């Protein structure tokens, strides 16, 4: 998805939906990445990968 910054907007938040279950599986992770749009000019990416850890809270169900 495209995240747009209007002039003088300093930050944007993007939410990733999570799906809960009751399976004991340990912590898991996924990655969020930023990539330039093909037609973008004069945009540089700093840290363009973020790591998201999903903590398993299913112990009480198993």
């Amino acid at each position, binding site marked *: *998805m*495209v*995240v*747009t*910054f*209007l*002039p*003088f*907007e*300093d*930050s*944007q*938040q*993007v*939410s*990733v*939906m*999570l*799906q*809960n*279950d009751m399976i004991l*599986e*340990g912590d*898991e*992770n*996924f*990655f*969020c*990445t*930023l*990539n*330039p*749009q093909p037609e*973008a000019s*004069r*945009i*540089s*990416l*700093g*840290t*363009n*990968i*973020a*790591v*998201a*850890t*999903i*903590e*398993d*809270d*299913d112990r009480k169900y198993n």
Partner: protein
Amino acid sequence: MSSRIVTFPVMATEQIVQITTNSDEISEDIETFLAVLSSPSAGATLGVERAAINITDTSSVILEFFPVMYTVLESNVSLTATIVKRTNTTRTVSVLFSTRSGSATGMGINRKRKVGRRGGGGREGRDGVMTYFSSFVQLYPTSLLSLTWL
């Protein structure tokens, strides 16, 4: 606006006028101003009396994640990542956000594909079922992707 008198001595055919521009830390589109000749002295007439000067900005806007590590309980509805803009700008800029499976499987902009589990007992990988719910953009304050882990 500022002005000055430019004098041509006898036999001079050209004069150079320097205009100082101020640099800033703002990433901007091309900006323009005009240089204008007026009020020639007696015996002189003006030909092309206006020149347009473009100021081209070469500075870039820096976008990045901050923070770069997030932790959320599985029972949470969503995880929110923050993207920050490090450079002041008068331009509207955009960047492509996507997700990539780790040990949690899902899909963002990635195509549906076989995804295995890491450290999960060697279970056969299953099709990632992450779907890009662009319509959620209209339903929530922030744009939403969906991630399902198996």
